[in-house]
């Protein structure tokens, strides 16, 4: 297939996934803001959210202070913010439009309708309690997009590039969500088990649809260690880093070409270290350090995929 087509599909999938994960991250912040806690913690939590998405500078160019309402508006609806939900859905749709002939009509129409409704959503949702409905809507549109792709697309290269983008983005996003929340929550005392802590951790788990899964897997108290283990190393947890990397590796192998050997090796290595990793050794290194390195390796993999498949070094 055309390299440009592969590029658009890959980014279409990444932006769709990113929009969903931003919605998840904002949702957990919003839920936590409803709990009794100090304003400084709230502010810290928003600063952390903006920082982990590398958006603090862009935010400060527009706003002097960090308030929940401003940060929420900036990350959900601001079209000047390239990582807002609005911008991600626009980018997903623009990429889809550029390859609409490669997508099935159902897939294209789903992405296009999402965008049409997103434009209306800017005025429809206030930043109050309704905002939770908006996040819910973003999540469901993302589920629908993936479902339509799963249900209608030919299992060819286009399909693999799409899922490669999805899982690489999800691996990145899960690591970021865990990083930002873990560090905000941890100082409050490992295993303290207070009511607020309970809600905080359960909000984090819910943000990655893992609350019920946690219950099923551990049948026990929520502890930070287990939360980390679930989101990093648990294979049957669909948003865990291990699960994502196993999918990345599988789809990458399906599209392997003559120059992608090193990229395959690096993806395989990342997958293997998650496959055989232990949570104790990870916590020993330091969770933040571990996640930072993981994010760097995901970025490296993304660049290598671009070079090997999307921007081939043909004569020009």
């Amino acid at each position, binding site marked *: 297939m055309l390299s*440009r087509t592969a590029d658009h599909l890959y980014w279409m999938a990444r932006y769709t996934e990113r929009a969903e994960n931003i919605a998840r991250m904002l949702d957990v912040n919003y839920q936590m803001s409803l709990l009794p806690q100090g304003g400084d913690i709230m502010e810290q939590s928003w600063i952390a959210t903006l920082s982990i998405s590398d958006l603090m500078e862009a935010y400060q160019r527009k706003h002097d202070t960090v308030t929940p309402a401003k940060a929420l508006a900036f990350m959900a609806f601001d079209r000047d913010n390239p990582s807002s939900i609005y911008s991600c859905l626009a980018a997903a749709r623009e990429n889809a439009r550029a390859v609409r002939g490669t997508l099935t009509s159902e897939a294209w129409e789903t992405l296009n309708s999402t965008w049409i409704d997103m434009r209306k959503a800017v005025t429809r949702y206030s930043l109050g309690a309704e905002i939770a409905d908006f996040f819910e809507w973003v999540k469901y549109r993302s589920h629908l997009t993936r479902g339509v792709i799963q249900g209608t697309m030919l299992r060819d290269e286009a399909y693999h590039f799409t899922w490669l983008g999805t899982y690489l983005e999800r691996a990145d996003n899960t690591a970021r969500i865990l990083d930002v929340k873990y560090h905000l929550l941890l100082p409050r005392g490992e295993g303290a088990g207070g009511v607020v802590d309970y809600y905080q951790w359960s909000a984090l788990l819910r943000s990655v649809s893992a609350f019920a899964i946690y219950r099923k897997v551990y049948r026990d108290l929520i502890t930070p260690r287990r939360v980390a283990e679930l989101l990093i190393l648990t294979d049957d947890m669909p948003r865990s880093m291990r699960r994502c990397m196993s999918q990345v590796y599988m789809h990458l192998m399906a599209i392997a070409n003559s120059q992608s050997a090193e990229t395959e090796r690096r993806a395989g290595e990342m997958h293997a270290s998650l496959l055989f990793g232990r949570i104790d050794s990870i916590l020993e290194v330091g969770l933040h350090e571990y996640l930072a390195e993981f994010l760097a390796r995901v970025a490296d993999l993304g660049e290598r995929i671009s070079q090997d498949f999307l921007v081939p070094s043909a004569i020009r």
Partner: protein
Amino acid sequence: MAAPTPYNEMHAAEGGVRTHYQAFDKWLASTSTEWLSQKRAEADMLFHRVGITFAVYGEEAGSERLIPFDVVPRIIPADEWRKLAAGLKQRVRALNAFTEDIYHDQNILKAGHIPAEQVLKNSQYRPEMQGVDVPNGIYAHIAGVDIVRAGAGEFYVLEDNLRVPSGVSYMLEDRRMMMRLFPELFVHYPIAPVEHYPDLLLDNLRSVSPVGVNDPTVVVLTPGSYNSAYFEHAFLAQQMGVELVEGKDLFVNDGFVYMRTTRGPKRVDVIYRRIDDDFLDPLAFRADSMLGVPGLLSAYRAGHVTIANAIGTGVADDKSIYPYVPDMIRFYLSEEPLLNNVPTYMLRKEEDLKYTLAHLDELVVKEVHGAGGYGMLIGPSASKEQIAAFRERIIAEPAKYIAQPTLALSACPTFVESGIAPRHIDLRPFVLSGKEVTLVPGGLTRVALREGSLVVNSSQGGGTKDTWVLER
């Protein structure tokens, strides 16, 4: 001069509904305005969702417009279509013969039928094409011929579009929409299908591949997703099952054209291009073109790739050449033209200029190289100031203009604000030339939605209608 009452496609002048519209009329009488409005809103919603839209330059980012779709079809009886189709095929055969002749022996010029400088000094003439052989001698693989009706059985060709004619996707989508909105109508009428157009197009493109290529790779070349016809480019590529490429996806190496794929370069044999000549190859034409493929012309001249339509077809559909088409038909085919040309005054001629300047309020004046309904004067509906301004422009450069009598374009009932009312229409059938000349029974009917307007172009407030050619 009082404008004569235009021919109405549905209602006869002497009263009553024409035979081929009777079943439709009965159906229409059974509907309500509210219901039709609802159906039209449904159509708009569907067109938006499917993304049959075009971006408007300079408007808010992300805003896109629809070309208005009208729910009243344009119906053409079988015998009228037979005559039209025969005339269209004849005309396109002659135009292809003319183009081949111009880029080879120029017999028609030698025989004195057309002044040589008219052709060779024309900005659409491409000296790069002189002596280049193209597969099957076909230049205009896809022609969109604009036709209007003045009276019963009286069809005129308004324009031969031989460069990158567009609109065929609307022909297909309008049909799909009508079948979805009003399936009951299709029971009453033996409507000839048009859905196989993409198959015919692909067959046609494959039939003109370079010599020696058995299983040609066909691509559609688009300027990109910001082009107003992008939907059509993507649609045709998808329907044919071929790649939709942009200039940057292609490159030329050792005289052959390749596309960049995830598995390395892949050779391309036939390019259905939707980019104007000027932008095709920055090494040969406009150097600032970001849309083209450097070296494409040389690969083409070497016979290693087919470009459809060929480079240089503009020399045959130019408005200054148009008056000679009937002569071409006689010269190349030894036949009498089946379709009428509109009488045309060529303002580079002294006597034509004099006549035109004296009758500006009755005539339509067009720029020779203009397209899209821009740069024209419609005398009968223009103000004194507009006419005076246009007069200046003509006097400054008479050779840039032609003039034609204002035709009383036929009108077709159309669903507008005030209900069902007649609006002027034209018709653009699409003629394919490869090993043979074919066309699907139908075309794009464009309608001028403003009352009294004769301009049907979508850039100027025109809409579209489904076109029904009856099988019997």
